[in-house]
Structure formats: structure tokens, C-alpha cells
């Protein structure tokens, strides 16, 4: 009766990316959450706020990554009160790492922590499955990241501008969406720098077309009239 197993863990197939540029970081992600082969949420937001200046990209089990980010947000809030100033990205990433490492047998989530603080500027930390913490100039994660290693080897360069960095992230996520069945939906980006945080949203029609893909026509976007992105 059921081809769709609703008791299958809710996992985010996912493509997540974090990239530093000269002034801050750009985080990017797709928006597909799948339960087995069914897309449970086609417009999810995988870039979650931890503090005003630190965000985390979540991949893997939706439940595990939500719980970890909830706990870290709570610890960081207390830490900020005790410290008297905004938490650094390094502290945020290490709190994530401690939870991921100490509960490695019960968690299945890969995270990319990115943000800006006044001491070190923009930083990206990858916290993959086992709970390692690795600071990198750029990090990729999720099932769609497999298709991006070669792309980044060729396209990444030091000292990009904000526009170049966001363009790179947008291009990379859309490439991964084109090839990875478990990634899809829209591309969300978050830019964090000394001035603050900017959230952007790119629906399918604003993404480049790749080899073999066709322009859409008579899509729901045309029939129903382009809706405003939902403010969730």
C-alpha cells in the first residue's frame, strides 16, 4: 500500500556550501528535504541562525541537525550573556563540534559553521559526520557536494569580492541540484560580514541552465503567476 515510507527518517539530501571572501563569508544551500523518495519539504531553510553573526548550514538527518543547532543556539546565548560581547565563530563551531563528537554514535549530521567576528573576520568551519572540526577557506557538504569537488578545484580563488563569492555559491548549488537527485528546490544564500547579514533567495527561473536542461515553459510559475517568496 505504501511506496512512501513515512517512518523513514527525514533526511536532507542536500547541497551545502560555505565560502570566505575578502570581508566575510557566503553560505549557500538547496531547499529539498526528503523522506525516502518523497520530497517532504521543497522549500526548507537549511541555513539556520545561531547568533546574529554566526549561521550554520545543516545536512544529513533533519531531526539531528535541528536538535544540535537548537542546543548550540541556547549555549551561545548563555555564552554571549556571560562574555558580554558577541560570540566568536570559533566558539560557535567548537560547540557544534563538541556535540557532534561526543554523540557521534547517535547523530547523523554534517554541518558547516560560518560567520564573521571582529577578531578573525570571516571564517568557515566544517564539522562533518565524525565530529572533526576543520577550518577551511571554503567548505562543501551534503550528498550533492560530491559533484562539486572538481568544480571548486577549478573555480575557487583567494580574495574574491562579495559579488564573485555569491555568484560562485549560486552557480555551485545549481550545478549540484542539476546532478544530485536528493538536492533541489530553490537556492538560498546568506552573506555575513562586518555590516550584518543579508539573506537571498533564488527560485528555479533565476538559476543558470546547464547542459541538457531545457528552459521551462507552461510551468506552475507561469500559470499561477510568479508568487512572492513565502516569509516563513
Amino acid at each position, binding site marked *: 500500500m505504501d511506496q512512501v515510507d513515512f517512518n523513514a*527518517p527525514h533526511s536532507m539530501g542536500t547541497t551545502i556550501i560555505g565560502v570566505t571572501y575578502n570581508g566575510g563569508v557566503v553560505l549557500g544551500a538547496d531547499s529539498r528535504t526528503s523522506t525516502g523518495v518523497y520530497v517532504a519539504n521543497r522549500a526548507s531553510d537549511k541555513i539556520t541562525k545561531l547568533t546574529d553573526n554566526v549561521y550554520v548550514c545543516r545536512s544529513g538527518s533533519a531531526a539531528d541537525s*535541528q536538535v544540535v543547532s537548537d542546543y548550540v543556539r541556547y549555549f551561545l546565548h548563555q555564552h554571549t550573556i556571560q562574555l558580554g560581547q558577541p560570540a566568536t565563530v570559533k566558539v560557535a563551531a567548537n560547540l557544534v563540534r563538541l556535540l557532534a563528537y561526543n554523540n557521534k554514535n547517535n547523530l547523523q549530521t554534517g554541518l558547516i559553521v560560518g560567520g564573521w567576528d571582529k577578531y578573525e573576520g570571516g571564517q568557515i568551519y566544517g564539522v562533518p559526520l565524525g565530529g572533526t572540526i576543520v577550518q577551511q577557506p571554503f567548505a562543501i557538504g551534503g550528498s550533492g557536494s560530491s559533484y562539486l569537488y572538481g568544480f571548486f578545484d577549478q573555480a575557487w580563488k583567494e580574495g574574491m569580492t562579495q559579488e564573485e563569492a555569491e555568484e560562485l555559491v549560486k552557480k555551485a548549488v545549481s550545478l549540484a541540484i542539476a546532478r544530485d537527485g536528493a538536492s533541489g528546490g530553490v537556492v538560498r544564500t546568506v552573506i555575513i560580514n562586518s555590516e550584518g547579514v543579508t539573506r537571498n533567495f533564488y527560485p528555479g527561473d533565476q538559476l543558470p541552465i546547464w547542459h541538457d536542461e531545457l528552459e521551462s515553459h507552461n510551468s506552475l510559475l507561469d500559470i499561477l503567476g510568479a508568487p512572492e517568496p513565502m516569509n516563513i
Partner: protein
Amino acid sequence: MTKSLDVPPKGGFSFDLCRRNDMLEKKGLKAPTYLKTGTTIVGLVFKDGIILGADTRATEGPIVADKNCEKIHYMAPNIYCCGAGTAADTEAVTDMVSSQLQLHRYHTGRESRVVTALTLLKRHLFNYQGHVSAALVLGGVDITGPHLHTIYPHGSTDTLPFATMGSGSLAAMSVFESKYQENLTREQGVKLVVEAICAGIFNDLGSGSNVDVCVITKGNKEYLRNHLTPNPRTFVNPKGFTFSKKTEVLSTKIIPLKEKVEVIEGDAMEE
């Protein structure tokens, strides 16, 4: 007369019947499966608030155990929750969080918020690592506005403008994806919800019978139980039912308890 010691009953589970159950199972008798709600449950956000919808069939394997069960559970005066999955789990978890919310209301003196219910539910489900098989659509209107969330058995949540869960969710989602728009009126919203549930009732074997709808707006809620009954009984015996063997009443004695209880105004207990 055999002398038997008066042993006070021991606490805990009595394993006496387990040997018998094992023997029965070896003989081929299958234990009854737990009651699942095959289910189609939906929710959507409309102009003034939230509309929740559900079918009313509860299944035990291939058999319909309850043709008219209630899947829209009360959480708070302004929050309702549809439940799919194991009926006992959805009932228990929504009852538990509903009473936690009431205690919280007494504690804070404020109307409950949907995110509070959401967090209590997701924490509980995560702690049980998916073994509490409850997939929920939680909706309500609080001081911060209307909110609609889906909660999965493993504890993950999504916040959406329209949502469907249960075995009939694909049929219902197809209706929502083609016809949902922002800022629907109440009539349009209820019509869309009914259409989505009917898609589940008629196309999914695990869903059936009637449509329940619940409309929640700021300061008001309407629980429309059996809003639509598209599956009446085809053949109804015109004679009706008579239960011939009646229990004979031998005598009646009514004791009003008020006279038995003395209300004493007194001081607090003193040692």
C-alpha cells in the same frame, strides 16, 4: 480447607500469561497488530488564520477498526493538532503536551503559543528516536500570528504555508500544489481542504469515511466534526437494531453522596 498465605500483591508486570502467548503463537495464532491511522491529514494558512483537515478512518492492518475516529486533537483553545501514524502514540503525545501547555498557561498567565507546543512535541519525539510513531500537523493562531508546522516521528519539524501528512499525503499534496494560493478566504480555504482530504479518502486505501475540518482564527475556533460525509452506509436494515437480551434490573438503590460527606471548616493540620 487448604491453608493459603495472604500474600500482598507484588508490584510490577505479571509474566504469567507470557508462556501461554508463546504457545499460542507457535500454534499459529497471530497477535493483533496495533491500530494505525492510515490517514490523510492536511493544514493550510489562509487570510485570517489556519484551517486543519483530516479523514476519519482508523485501520488495524487491512481492517477498518474505526469508521469515524477523531484525528484533530485539542492542544489549547487556540491550537489544534492533526495526527497520523500509530493511533495510541498520536493520542498520547498530544494529550501529554496539551496538559503541559495548560500547566504552562497557569504558570505564565498567557495564551499558549504554537512554537511552545512545537518544541514540546519535537523534544519528546526526538528523545524517543522515532519509536513514538506520530507524524503531526500542528496549527494555531497566537499573539504572534498564524502558524502551521509539520512534525515527523524522528523529531524534525518544518514550517510551511500548506502541509499534508499520512499515507494519503501525496494525493492531498497534489491538490494543494495545483490550487493553493496565499490569502485565501475562509470559504475558499475550507473548500480546498475538503478537496484535498477527499483526494486522500478516495484514492488512498488507508484513508476513508468522513472529512473533519477545524478553522482557527484570532480569538476564535470552529471544530467542524464530520463537515462532509461522502461515504454513507449503502444498505441499512429498515428494521433497525434490537438488542434482545436485556440485563434484568432486580433492584435499584440510589445513595446521594452529599449527605455522606461532612465538610468541616478547620485549621491547617498541626503535628
